[in-house]
């Protein structure tokens, strides 16, 4: 293949930066796994390792006025949306400087500034919320703004998926549904949870344009997302992309991962989105080995700085426990209501 015929012929900066993005996520999360072992991070921890091409590819296509929603497997999404490694790590350390003030943890990263709406740990729960965000963009005339909603293929069985698809299509809201089909929902394979495993067909049954994309190939992810977003931004209506992918690690740190054939895992690891893309960029002389080494270095530096900051950061004082349960309302005017209905004349002796 000559370079000129390659899809990577132009936009070298883009491809370099996408490789760098994937590496940032990988390094960050491998460190998370270690920190979990050291009990610095607690609760549930779900790693995205193996699936980085999706968040990296999609996020690189977004504008600041877009909105993003994700699941509990969302460190990568948050990081690439622009939430700092430091505030994510601090969050997982339960620190006051965390992006959710230490109240959310790994599953509940939020950042209003970058319109990163979490971090939902109820499978399927954020899909209807995405529809509402899209509706707001539509109604308020924020033309071209898109809400991007990531979710696993396990969510497709939930009623909320169905209700959200229908509402999105019915109201023609600008939402891009990104299904990260890593083939398993905890220990349950797609085949054992869906009677019809062609997920694009599901979307079609709501008249939502849908296609299926190789989620291990960031070039494909980027191209499909670009195309889909152009359509959503222009027409306003929803689209659905199924990204075929695989998680290299167990579902969470609690999962002994006994339900997958190790050979299957190894097979997929051969398609590691970072290794394959790095090789390709080197082959096509877009980056050098040294460039790549530098990317890993930079990512490690970023992550270590985040860990150090998280370590050093203060915790929320316990007397803030009840903060943020409700936000203070403007004090309601105290108006005398109509007089009480009746007053008793007689008094019991």
């Amino acid at each position, binding site marked *: 293949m000559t370079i000129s015929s390659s899809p990577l012929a132009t936009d070298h900066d883009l491809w370099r930066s996408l490789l760098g993005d994937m590496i940032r996520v990988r390094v960050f999360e491998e460190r998370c796994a270690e920190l979990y072992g050291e009990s610095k991070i607690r609760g549930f921890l779900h790693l995205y390792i193996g699936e980085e091409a999706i968040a990296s590819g999609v996020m690189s296509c977004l504008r600041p006025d877009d909105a993003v929603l994700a699941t509990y497997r969302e460190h990568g999404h948050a990081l690439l949306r622009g939430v700092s490694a430091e505030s994510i790590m601090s969050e997982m350390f339960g620190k006051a400087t965390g992006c959710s*003030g230490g109240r959310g943890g790994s599953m509940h990263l*939020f950042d209003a500034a970058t319109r990163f709406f979490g971090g939902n740990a*109820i499978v399927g729960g954020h899909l209807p*919320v995405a529809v509402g965000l899209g*509706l707001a963009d539509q109604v308020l005339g924020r033309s071209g703004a898109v809400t991007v909603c990531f979710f696993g293929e396990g969510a497709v069985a939930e009623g909320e998926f169905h209700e959200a698809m*229908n509402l999105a299509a019915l109201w023609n809201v600008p939402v891009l549904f990104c299904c990260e089909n890593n083939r398993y929902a905890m220990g349950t394979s797609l085949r054992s949870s869906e009677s019809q495993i062609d997920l694009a067909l599901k979307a079609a049954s709501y008249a939502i344009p849908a296609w299926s994309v190789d989620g291990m190939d960031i070039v494909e992810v980027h191209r499909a997302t670009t195309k889909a977003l152009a359509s959503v931004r222009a027409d306003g209506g929803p689209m659905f992309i199924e990204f075929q992918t695989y998680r290299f690690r167990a579902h969470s740190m609690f999962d002994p991962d006994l339900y997958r054939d190790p050979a299957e895992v190894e097979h997929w690891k051969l398609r590691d989105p970072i290794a394959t893309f790095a090789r390709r960029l080197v082959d096509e002389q877009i980056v050098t080995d040294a460039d790549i080494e530098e990317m890993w270095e930079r990512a490690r530096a970023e992550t270590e700085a985040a860990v150090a900051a998280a370590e050093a950061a203060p915790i929320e004082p316990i007397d803030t426990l009840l903060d*943020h349960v409700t936000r203070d309302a403007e004090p309601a*005017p105290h108006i005398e209501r109509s007089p009480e209905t009746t007053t*008793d004349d007689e008094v019991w002796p």
Partner: protein
Amino acid sequence: MSSLDADTDERIDAEVVPSMTYREAMREALRDALATDDRVFIMGEDVADYGGTYAVTKGLYEEFGRDRVRNTPLSESGFVGAGIGAALGGLRPIVEIMTVNFSLLALDQVVNTAATLLHMSGGQLNVPLVIRTTTGAGRQLAAQHSHSLEGWFAHVPGLKVVAPATPEDARWMLPTALADPNPVIIFEHATLYNESGPVDPVLGPVDIDRAAVRRHGSDLTIVASAGMVSKALAAADLLSAAGMSAEVIDLRSLRPLDFDTMAASLARTSRALVVDEGWRTGGLSAEISAGLTERCFWSLDAPIARLASAEVPIPYAKHLETAAIPQIEDIVAAAHDLVGDR
């Protein structure tokens, strides 16, 4: 009786204090909200040209169009979630869940997202969502259409829960709820829609966290909310005729509960009866009893009494349904028991 018929008695009497029905008051509140704030919209099943099952939103679709008065398919979880998203996106949604019975399908969105988001996000993302729903029994709609589950919602930190018992509160609680940065659930009692009462046309938004003393009295305090307030007042009239002076408190806000107003009353009366249309065990009446006892134990002349619905799914047959829900005579009898006690 069709919902059309229900409308016919809504002509506002041209008195000094205008009187209107609870339904008309609620509609007026909605119309006002739509007219004064572009971000406000209503959504729910058949809220548009149909005008709402209880005819509350009637005419608003014609007046404000389909973007402001938006029909939804039957998908309670979906459109409540969409309401949360729309609120996050800068709108001020008023989501109508036709009845609290169907809200069971949307509780995940209400509890796991609306109520928790502000906290989970460390204070970043508030959800200024208003949910309106009807509650209560009394119309022979049987077990699946007669729940009074306000107490469940009142249990959940992050939510505010109100229950207007008068047309005036139906009219003026909504603007306050809409101005509130948090999710507010408004419970409208289905038997109240045709009830008329005075509504100050220019009162303006009212507090939604305080109880109101609807009747002064000195022998006992009756605490009630929503559909039970008028029954409590009627009972108080009967008690008065029998020489007993009952103070009647309308809770208005179910979360937070206004224990100050209740305790102040109890300081005067030393006895309290809590009347609740929900089931007794673990209902709102339990919290009021427990919370009041904690505050007023040493000045109580008798344990706080509770009168709640029988522990049974509400039956269809009229006589059984009537027997299952607290009635005026039951309140009178409970008051006598309480005051005769010791």
